[in-house]
């Protein structure tokens, strides 16, 4: 039999296992799709642009601080601590990068991951294979969120490594003025990054929604970046003070509750539900839109 005639004898490509194995089959399929989304990310320049943006500031900061050995009069407690312990460095970086740089990095992938398929015309290619739309959506959304998480922890890891290499692995003074040991400070940094990721992932979910809705990569990325800027401006408008606790950008500072002694969980819990109000509807809209949309271009 020729190579082309095998369809008569082989199982269809979409043959499915017995129902008992359906759960693990779906899970394996999703893992496979996520792995391929990650491979696609690895093959694109913008992935490295985002990660470069994440690691460049802490690296440049440490280099310039070391080159310029004069007196520093920092107002922030972590900035004042910087030469005493390298562990102040990732906290300082989170403070500086949280409002704009890390949201830009999150937007680069979240705003692009669906719209790029429209731009390339590849959406019709992948939707005429055997993966369901829901599976493809899940794989792409998880990949964008994983990238966001990776960017934050990479930036934190580079800042920690550069800080510790320059100024040592010493105890850290908290925002309450007390000291915590270096190992505990390291755990707090990991936890603070996780806490910061809550609003950032909500923003990424908005980026996913815009990516599905606009079908235009540049528009989705720019709109996602613009969202926190607009909210920052709203936060400055007199008379709108009542909205401040519910602005997504306000939640970018909730992680600071972890840097107090005792830990102030109030801002963290508040951030969690406020961010859920932003992120979950955005994700649901993106999902439903992707499931029902016509793929007419490409």
């Amino acid at each position, binding site marked *: 039999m020729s190579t082309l005639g095998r369809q008569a004898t082989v199982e269809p490509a979409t043959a499915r296992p017995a129902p008992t194995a359906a759960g693990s089959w779906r899970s394996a399929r999703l893992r496979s799709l996520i792995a391929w989304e990650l491979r696609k990310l690895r093959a694109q320049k913008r992935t490295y642009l985002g990660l470069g943006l994440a690691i460049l500031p802490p690296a440049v900061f440490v280099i310039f601080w070391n080159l310029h050995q004069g007196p520093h009069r920092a107002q922030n407690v972590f900035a004042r601590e910087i030469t005493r312990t390298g562990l102040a460095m990732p906290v300082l970086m989170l403070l500086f990068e949280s409002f704009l740089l890390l949201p830009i990095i999150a937007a680069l992938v979240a705003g692009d991951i669906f719209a790029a398929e429209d731009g390339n015309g590849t959406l019709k290619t992948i939707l005429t294979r055997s993966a369901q739309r829901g599976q493809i959506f899940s794989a792409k959304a998880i990949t964008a969120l994983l990238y966001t998480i990776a960017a934050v922890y990479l930036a934190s890891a580079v800042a920690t490594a550069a800080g510790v290499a320059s100024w040592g692995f010493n105890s850290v003074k908290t925002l309450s003025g007390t000291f915590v040991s270096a190992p505990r400070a390291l755990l707090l940094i990991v936890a603070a990054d996780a806490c910061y990721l809550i609003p950032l992932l909500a923003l990424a979910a908005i980026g996913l929604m815009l990516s599905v809705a606009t079908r235009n990569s540049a528009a989705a990325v720019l709109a996602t970046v613009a969202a926190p800027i607009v909210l920052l401006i709203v936060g400055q408008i007199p008379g709108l003070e009542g909205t401040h606790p519910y602005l997504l950008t306000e939640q970018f500072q909730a992680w600071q509750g972890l840097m107090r002694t005792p830990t102030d969980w109030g801002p963290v819990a508040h951030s969690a539900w406020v961010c859920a109000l932003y992120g979950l509807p955005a994700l649901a809209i993106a999902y439903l839109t992707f499931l*029902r949309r016509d793929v007419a271009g490409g």
Partner: protein
Amino acid sequence: MSPDALSMAGAPQRDFDPQLVPVCARGLTKRYSEVLAVDRLDLTVPPGAVFGFLGPNGAGKTTTLRMLLGLIMPSAGSALLFGRDPIREGARALAGVAGFVEAPRFYPYLSGRRNLEMMAALDGNTSARARIDELLELVALSGAAKQRVGGYSHGMGQRLGIAAALLREPRLLILDEPTTGLDPGGIRDMRELILRLSAEGITILLSSHQLSEVQEICREVAIIRRGRIVYTGAIAQLHGGPDRAYRLQTSDNARAAELIGAQGAAQLLESEDGELRISATQAQVGELSLALGSAGIALYLLAPLQATLEDLFFSLTEDDDDARPALSIGGAGADQGRVGL
């Protein structure tokens, strides 16, 4: 005459077990606000056929194919592939179906091989490596397998599209303008490949605006115009059928016309410029020539009136204003409709 009036919609659709019918669309409609892109389209593609889906650009071919593949939601009607509905069942309904609409598209930053590996992953096929090698060889892309698709020519992209489709080991292959942008050699190779796939038992739905392409490959066609099917059936039927038109010149056309009327077999269509035009089967033409000779009427010319497929195609798909006078190519009471000539 309006091509709508010439529609073969009244022709009976053949009945098959729905699970065996590669494509069965009924009343398929797509409306974009004021624009009716596809209008109550009925289409049946029988198993094993190389079925041509013919129409000018903008007639609704690609929109129809997108609906068949579940890429866009019909405004009304249904489309089943092997008895399954891609709109309701999603990708599960595409088991055994492959192809592409418009040009096949791939990730330009991945190599051809990587793209195929990804397509296999999307199909849940985890052991496709050897098959990918075979297919790359088949479409003559082995040498460019590691090259990024962004650097591929249009023809290479088309061939990769075929490979990606065959990776699914389909029973139905949907190809939308597969030779567009190919050089003559590429067109020949594509045509040979399609015929070869058909010989292997794969049903092929070939959408094209190029009549010559369809004419050479397909035995059955559906012709679409402004979103509506205006003809469906065998190309041979479209081209002539058992009854054909003939030109007749004799030494005495008036008596010949009387003889035709008295004989009652052939049908006199018109008389002009010293020439008669009749509609008859081949056997009736033979009888008529003998009858003319017996009646002492010399026969100067008795020849088929050739309506090229291209003429018929244009008459079916051009605007009403452009349509030429109608000529029957169907027998009385037969399934065939009338097409403008």
